[in-house]
């Protein structure tokens, strides 16, 4: 079960680039086990550390800027999380302490992975993202109200799918939710099996 989300107040980490892909969020080289943990150290490894194998922080990368040491929100451009479906990208973000990403758009698989892991994908337009970045101050994201606000009162609302919102608010387990419908699923599959038997393969001998 993912950690429930109600609201977060944080200075957002400005990563104002388009097409930040999951290979950057967690490089393949940093995925060393079959588990979901131990990934935060490899988050943004290619940009965060100097050289290709060491762990010396690169001061030029924003994640190493002490002002953003406690940021729980990333502020980004278009198509955040594109590329590989690796859920490790979201596990790494969550383990590091991020609770939300604000972007102009998200790659669909990444957005789905966020919802399954308690991270809110917030879509705002370019003007709102520029205004938030320009303010240099903390923001508050409230999920129930679906809004993002600055301390000076400027406020933007965002859209989120009703089911994704409910799952994030309550940290619901999607599998449990679906298994409550087990009888309806079985009934549908029974009909479908009669209509399309070739879809329902027999167990191999």
């Amino acid at each position: 079960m993912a950690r429930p989300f109600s609201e977060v107040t944080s200075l957002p980490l400005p990563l104002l680039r388009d097409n930040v892909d999951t290979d950057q969020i967690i490089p393949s080289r940093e995925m060393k086990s079959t588990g979901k943990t131990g990934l935060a150290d490899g988050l943004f490894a290619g940009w965060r550390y100097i050289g290709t194998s060491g762990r010396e922080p690169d001061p030029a990368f924003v994640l190493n800027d002490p002002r953003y040491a406690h940021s729980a929100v990333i502020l980004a451009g278009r198509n955040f999380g594109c590329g590989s479906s690796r859920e490790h990208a979201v596990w790494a973000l969550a383990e590091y302490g991020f609770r939300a990403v604000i972007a102009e758009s998200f790659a669909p698989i990444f957005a789905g992975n966020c919802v399954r892991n308690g991270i809110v994908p917030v879509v705002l337009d370019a003007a709102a993202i520029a205004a938030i970045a320009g303010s240099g101050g903390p923001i508050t994201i409230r999920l129930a109200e679906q809004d993002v606000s600055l301390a000076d009162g400027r406020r933007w609302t965002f859209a989120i799918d009703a089911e994704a919102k409910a799952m994030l608010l309550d940290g619901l387990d999607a599998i449990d939710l679906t298994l409550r419908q087990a009888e309806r699923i079985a009934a549908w599959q029974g009909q479908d099996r009669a209509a399309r038997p070739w879809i329902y393969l027999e167990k191999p001998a």
Partner: protein
Amino acid sequence: MAAAGRKVADPARVFAVTDHIVDTRPGRTDQTLMPGGQAFITETRAATLAAGIRLFDVTDPDQGIVHVISPELGIVLPGATLIAPDSHTCTQGAFGALAWGIGSSEAEHAMATGTLRLKKPGTMRVTFAGVLPAMVTPKDMALALIARHGAGGGAGHAVEFAGEAVRALDMEGRMTLCNMATEFAAMTGMIAPDEKTFAWLAGRRYAPSGPQWEAALAQWRMLASDPDARFDREIGIDAGALAPMVSWGTSPEQSAPIDGCVPPDAPQRVLDYIGLASGVQLKGTAIDAAFIGSCTNSRLSDLRQAASLLQGRRIAQGLKAICVPGSSQVKREAEAEGLDRIFIEAGFEWRESGCSMCFYAGGESFAPGARVVSTTNRNFESRQGPNVKTHIASPATVAASALAGCLADPREIA
């Protein structure tokens, strides 16, 4: 799933394959250069055995990249719903299936319940009118679409590829086109099934046979969109005006015709990474390595096209060049035609099937900072190795470039 006490709802409809982790060097075993890779293979073997799931294991004659072997075995079918925890699952939309990539949690959901919770996506039709010129391929169609409409251009939509140039593609070409739908941020790409689709699937292992085949055909012939179907968005592209494409940056949207230049407004941080300047001509850029493989371009027709350019020629001196067939079956078929000899005599390594250096699969990468021309799908920073500069292109363009030792136009060699 085991920790939550959950079981696979219907193991007969679940398949597993070793492709991302497995070594592709000749004479391979379970051992891989990837840290933890061997444990991954061993754990997968034990878990699939315990759950009753069919695994296409390292030495299985049907092993290969998931999106290559699923069609080969007739696992994907028109009208089927198919998912895999891999973004390029949209490849299989070429058969008129609803096929898309998901994360691990959703894969768990699918196995535990036989379902997924999904919000209906918007609909988009991309119509390629006209006839593709010689040496212009489905890969070039996809890169042209993404270059014009952005790597986020398909967001929120499922895309149907249509039009004369799409109908004319063989099934392998259709798979290449649909494969790149995820690089367009689309939920999936698909192509209406037709007689070519049905002929390709007939007789394959998991496809229906006998009376069930006839019943399936009757249903499949009704799957195509109606002529007057309305889509939320429409894009039109003149296939006859397309050229071979090559990427110049670190996103597939940063692609241009091979006879074009790096655009004047290219972002500076991208230019710093890729080591090119705005205005520079792409053709003639010196390369260190060439790669032919991946779920995008590793099927028999891809290898034939590259081999047609390589036959009787040698690649540039000092160039590292690798060809990785998409499946063990593709490898056997290519060897039966003598394609392996053509690649080897031209100077290519000839590998076992797997995902290989598309992304550090099997734990292998190109040399740090190398410039690589590649038939893969992603030119992301360091995807093919630390600071590796990737130029994605078609098998024809990669073969032509390998011969020339620099980015080259296949139309000038053929």
